[in-house]
C-alpha cells in the first residue's frame, strides 16, 4: 500500500500557544482517517497544514509525495478541500460556482451529477446567498469534490446538516472510498467517525492521544465496563460511595456513570453501599464501553466536553 500522507513531528505555534505539538501519522491510499478532538485541539491547524493553507513551524510533511507548503497547481489539481469556514461568491448560483471553479481542474466531475449527489437539484440555480446554512455547506462539499480529487480533506463536513442530509453525505463519502479515494476528515460526531473511518486519531491539546481503528480504540478500554445508575437526592456526603471505587466516576445530574476495569468488585461495593442505606438504584446498567466513553476518557471529560458537540448532543 502506498502512503498518501506522511506526517512526522509536526509542530505549529501561535504566539505562546502550541496548537500542534509534535504530531505524527500516516494515511495510506484509499484509507479514511477521522481526526476527533475537542474544540481547539488543533485539528483544523493540522489539516490546513496538509492542504498547504498554513505554514508549519517544524516537522516533515509529505502529501501525495509533495511538500504541501510548496505544492503548486498540479498538487492542488489532485486534492479536494472542504474548509471549516470559507466563503464563496454568494451572488452566483450553485451551478455557476461549480462551473467556475470546476474549469480550473484537469478532470472535473459532471456538474449535474454532483448537484444531484449533494441533493441541491431544486436549488441549483438559486443564488447561494439564498440557501440555508446546511445547504451552503453542501455547496462547499460539492466544490470540494468538483475536481474529482484523489485525496480529500473534509474539515467538519457535516456540521449543520440535518440527520437525513448527514446520512446522505456519509453515503457520498463512503462512495468516494469505494472509488479508492483517500480521505482525511475531522469531526465531532463519534458515530460519523465510527461509520466512515478506517482509522481514528484522537487529538487533544495539539497531540494525538490515540490512533487506531474504531474497534482497536474500543478494545483499548474494552476491559473497562460502564456501570451507571440514578442516585436519589441524599443529604449525606458521597465519599463513602466514590472513594473505594476502582473505576473512575462521573455524574450527570443524578446519573452516575463510571468506567471500571473491575466491574465485579465495584458493583458489589455500589450495591452494598445502597443496600445498607435502603436506597434503590434506579436504571442500574452494566455494559461495555462505547466509542464515546473511549473518547471522553482520552480527552479528559471535564474540559471542553460541553461544547465539543458530542453525537448525543
Amino acid at each position, binding site marked *: 500500500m502506498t502512503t498518501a500522507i506522511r506526517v512526522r513531528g509536526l509542530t505549529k505555534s501561535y504566539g505562546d500557544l502550541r496548537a500542534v505539538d509534535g504530531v505524527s501519522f500516516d494515511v495510506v491510499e484509499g484509507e479514511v482517517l477521522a481526526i476527533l478532538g475537542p474544540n481547539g485541539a488543533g485539528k483544523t491547524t493540522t489539516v490546513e497544514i496538509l492542504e498547504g493553507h498554513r505554514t508549519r513551524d517544524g516537522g516533515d510533511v509529505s502529501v501525495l509525495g509533495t511538500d504541501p507548503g510548496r505544492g*503548486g497547481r498540479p498538487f492542488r489539481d489532485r486534492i479536494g478541500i472542504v474548509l471549516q*469556514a*470559507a466563503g464563496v461568491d454568494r451572488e452566483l448560483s450553485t451551478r455557476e460556482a461549480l462551473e*467556475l471553479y470546476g474549469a480550473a481542474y484537469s478532470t472535473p466531475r459532471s456538474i449535474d451529477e454532483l448537484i444531484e449527489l449533494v441533493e441541491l437539484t431544486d436549488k441549483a440555480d438559486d443564488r447561494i446567498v439564498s440557501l440555508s446554512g446546511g445547504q451552503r455547506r453542501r455547496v462547499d462539499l460539492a466544490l470540494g469534490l468538483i475536481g474529482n480529487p484523489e485525496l480529500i480533506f473534509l474539515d467538519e463536513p457535516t456540521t449543520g446538516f440535518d440527520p437525513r442530509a448527514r446520512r446522505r453525505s456519509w453515503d457520498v463519502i463512503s462512495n468516494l472510498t469505494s472509488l479508492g479515494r483517500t480521505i482525511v476528515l475531522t469531526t465531532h460526531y463519534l458515530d460519523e467517525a465510527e461509520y466512515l473511518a478506517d482509522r481514528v486519531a484522537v487529538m487533544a491539546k495539539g497531540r494525538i492521544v490515540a490512533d487506531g481503528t474504531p474497534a482497536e480504540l474500543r478494545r483499548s478500554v474494552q476491559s473497562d465496563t460502564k456501570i451507571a445508575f440514578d442516585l436519589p437526592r441524599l443529604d449525606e456526603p458521597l465519599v463513602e460511595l466514590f472513594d473505594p471505587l476502582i473505576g473512575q466516576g462521573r455524574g450527570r445530574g443524578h446519573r452516575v456513570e463510571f468506567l471500571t476495569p473491575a466491574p465485579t468488585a465495584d458493583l458489589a461495593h455500589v450495591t452494598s453501599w445502597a443496600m445498607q442505606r435502603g436506597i434503590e438504584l434506579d436504571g442500574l446498567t452494566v455494559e461495555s464501553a462505547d466509542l464515546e466513553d473511549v473518547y471522553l476518557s482520552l480527552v479528559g471529560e471535564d474540559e471542553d466536553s460541553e461544547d465539543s458537540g458530542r453525537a448525543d448532543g
Partner: protein
Amino acid sequence: MDNSLGASRVSLVVRHIRAQNRIFWRVPIGAFFALFLPVMMLVLFVALFGSDTYTTEYGEVSRAQFYTPALAVFAVASATFTNLAINLSIRRDEGILRRVRGTPLPPWIYLAGVIGSAVYMALLGTVAVVTLGVVAYGVNIELTKLPAMLVALVLGATAFATWGVALAALTRTAAAAPAVANAVILPLAFVSNVFVSFEGEAPAWLLLVGDTFPLRHFVISFGEAMSPFSEAPAFLPERLGVLVAWTVVGALVALRKFRWEPAVGASSARGRRGNSR
C-alpha cells in the same frame, strides 16, 4: 507543464471576468455608484448650472463640456478604486480568496477576473457619461483626439485599479474599506476638478495637493482630449507620466502587502455585506 491542466489561462481569465460581471449586476449598489451616480450627477449639474459657461484661458466653455469628462473620470475612479478596495477586502474576509488558493486556479487569475470586471465597468461608466454629454448636451468630441482619450482612460483606470488593490491590501478588515476608500476619493475629487473647476483662484496648497495625487492629472488629461480648444493629438505627457508613476508605486504596495487570508479577528466567512459605503 502547467498548461496541461484544465482550461487555458486566457479562457479562465475571461470566465472569471464574466462571473464577476454577473456578480456586479446582481449587487445593485455597486452598479449604482459606478454607473448610475455619475450619469445622474451629470444631469443634475447641467440642470443646475446649464446655461452657465466658464472662461478658460482659451475661451468660453459650457458647463457640460467641463462636467462630462470630469464625471466620466469619477465613474472610472468609483468602478476601479472604490469598488476594488471594497470588493477585494470583502472577498478576503469572507474567505473566498483562501478558498481559491486551495484550488488549482492560479490566484492571480481570480484577481484578474475581479480587476478585469472593474475595468470593464469603468469603461461602461465612461461610455455612459460621455455618450450622454455628447448626445444630450452637445459636448465636443473629435475623432483625431480619440487616441488621447483612450490613452488617458487606460492609464487612469490602471492607476486607480492598482490603488484599489493596494488599498484592499492596506486595510485590515473589510469593514474599514468603504470608509477609507471614500475618505480618500471624495476630498480628492474636490481638489481635482471633478465637482468644481479651479485653476488660478485656488490657494496654492490646494493646487499642490491636487497635483500630487493622480486624480487631477487624470481629469485634465481626459478633459484635454475632449476640449474644443486643444490641438490633436492632445496628449499631456507629463500628466500621463504622473499616472504611470502612481501605478508603479501602487503596484509595489499591492505586491508587497496583499493578503489572501482574513486578518485574525476579521469577521470571517459569514455575514456579508450591504456593500455599504
